[in-house]
């Protein structure tokens, strides 16, 4: 419809209509906006601000220092080490959690009597808090009384003091995190599976596809947006992990599990270096943002949205 005819009918210009709609939407958006402003936007802006200022240990007496702290962060070998640890941690958590979630979702997607019970079990870790699961894993990983070493010992596999070994601490923490994320991955992938029309499988079967071809040519392409979502969220989870590190290893041994967020925490609340911690946080923010954009860039090329 051209603008003239709309004016003729006194509908108003598209611009006026857009404004009217925005005004109408405002009361509905307001509660979320307030929450976002208080818990997201303000801290974000404040962090960026603090990144440019040196402060006393209580975050007061701000002194403008320009980009000095950002420079420090980007050139510090400690920060680079934390970045590397976080990257490894993401690698160790995202791929296994997505793969296991996919496997469990495929298993429990079939229509079988009682399957709901299994779906519930597979998804249950989503309802367990990081603190609780960390404590449980802390016990299981305990070198002398933990069940893991007990089982390994029975099987004749050499045991390990998992959380105090510089080699094994990060994989061990990653393993507990995978366990925590499986529930979320399973639920989301199950939902993704329900969105693939049954007819596509039937068509493929009539066309001569076996189970593997069905998976490759129907399930996987149909799930690609879901798998992308699960892995993007998984990477973000990984870069933001804190609770399990704090409870299991406190960043040790020898900084082997000192991921970025833990290093920020140390900087801010153990060394009271608020400005430097803020600068690290901002850099983390930019990294996560770039990773997300990158993944969506990949998505445009490879992922199929219906």
């Amino acid at each position, binding site marked *: 419809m051209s603008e003239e005819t709309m004016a003729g009918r006194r509908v108003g210009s598209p611009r006026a209509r857009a404004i009217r709609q925005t005004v109408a939407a405002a009361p509905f958006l307001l509660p979320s906006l307030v929450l976002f402003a208080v818990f997201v936007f303000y801290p974000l802006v404040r962090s960026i601000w603090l990144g440019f200022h040196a402060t006393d240990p209580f975050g007061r007496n701000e002194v403008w220092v320009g980009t000095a702290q950002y420079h420090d962060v980007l050139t510090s070998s400690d920060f680079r080490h934390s970045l590397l640890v976080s990257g490894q941690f993401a690698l160790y958590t995202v791929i296994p959690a997505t793969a296991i979630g996919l496997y469990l979702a495929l298993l429990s997607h079939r229509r079988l009597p009682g399957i709901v019970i299994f779906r519930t079990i597979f998804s249950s870790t989503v309802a367990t808090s990081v603190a609780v699961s960390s404590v449980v894993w802390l016990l299981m990983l305990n070198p002398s009384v933990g069940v893991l070493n007990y089982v390994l010992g029975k099987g004749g596999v050499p045991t390990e003091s998992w959380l105090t070994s510089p080699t094994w601490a990060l994989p061990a923490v990653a393993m507990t995190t995978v366990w925590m994320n499986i529930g979320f991955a399973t639920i989301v992938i199950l939902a993704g599976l329900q969105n693939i*029309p049954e007819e*596509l499988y*039937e068509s493929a*079967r*009539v066309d*001569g*596809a*076996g189970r593997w071809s069905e998976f490759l040519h129907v399930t996987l392409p149909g799930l690609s947006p879901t798998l992308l979502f699960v892995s993007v969220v998984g990477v973000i989870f990984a870069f933001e992990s804190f609770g399990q590190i704090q409870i299991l290893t406190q960043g040790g041994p020898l900084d082997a599990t000192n991921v970025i967020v833990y290093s920020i925490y140390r900087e801010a609340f153990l060394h009271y270096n608020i400005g430097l911690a803020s600068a690290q946080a901002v850099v983390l923010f930019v990294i996560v943002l770039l990773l997300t954009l990158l993944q969506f860039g990949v998505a445009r090329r490879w992922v199929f949205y219906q």
Partner: protein
Amino acid sequence: MSVRFDHVSKRFGDVEALVDFTLDVADGEFMVLLGPSGCGKTTALRILAGLEEPTAGAVTIAGRDVTDLPPRQRDVAMVFQNYALYPHMSVYDNIAFGLRMRRIPRREIDRTVREAAATLAIADVLARKPGALSGGQRQRVALARAMVRRPRAFLMDEPLSNLDAKLRAQTRVELIRLHRQLQTTVVYVTHDQVEAMTMGHRIAVLERGRLQQVGEPREIYERPANLFVAEFIGSPSMSFFRGPLRQTDGGGAVVDVPHLPFALDPAQAAAARGAGWAEVVVGVRPEHIVLAEDFGERYAAATFEADIDVVESLGNELHVSLISQGRGMVARLPAGAPVAAGEARRFAVARGHLLLFEPEHGTRLG
């Protein structure tokens, strides 16, 4: 290849979707399964494809029992109602999919796909995704995908139902042509009697999971096996009148519908007497109700006065709804027939075209 349903039944919990269904489809035949929604057509087709297991009975393809074979070993191709194209694959890959699954050499796949695309006039959209196609194009892609497989039989589940009327009529003709060219057995499911009548070599009419009649379109139309088929086939529908059977002097018989007695032909009268029916349902096709003034009374099985309720003009003919003594019926008259809504006219029912049914079970006499 020939296809056979051998006493096939299918239950879904309490629902009997298919009951003791037996049907032989000859090699190269175009068989239509026709019936109202929910009568079990799709179920029959899915059992033939191997997507559904029958509760009882067997399915044979080319003389071989395939009841326990998975779909991919049956070598049939199916066109789904919503086409079921793989949305993430190009049109080319969609068409090639079945051939790739069968490990046909690449060059042969390419040749076959392009040939089919040319036949169905979709060669220019081979690179597109199904999402970027019109309904008619998607339908052709689904057909091409089935065609390239050179299957033993095509199974089609209401393949035209998502097209608009004009495209549907066009595609119908193309399907007929395609079948003539390929000579492959087709089992075609539809609830549309026009599709069934125009495309089917034979039609199998189903209702509530039960086979009602199998026959050539003309046979189904002219000699429906029972009341259900008689009412279901033909548009506008047949009109039905129920009355006691009364013998007349001279060996004749009359169906004594109040205010509308139908005189039977001697042969029909004899048959009715032989069957020993007390009451009869008379079925009259709309084209056999005519204006009495155009018609010699002695060719009439009945004449009656009726009020003209509605006149629908289709351009080449009129569908005229009549009310006579509180009974509704429809006549099909030539365009330009002198009738107008609100008038009362005299009508006649042409002799020799009455169909007689037994009221309880609906079976047709003769």
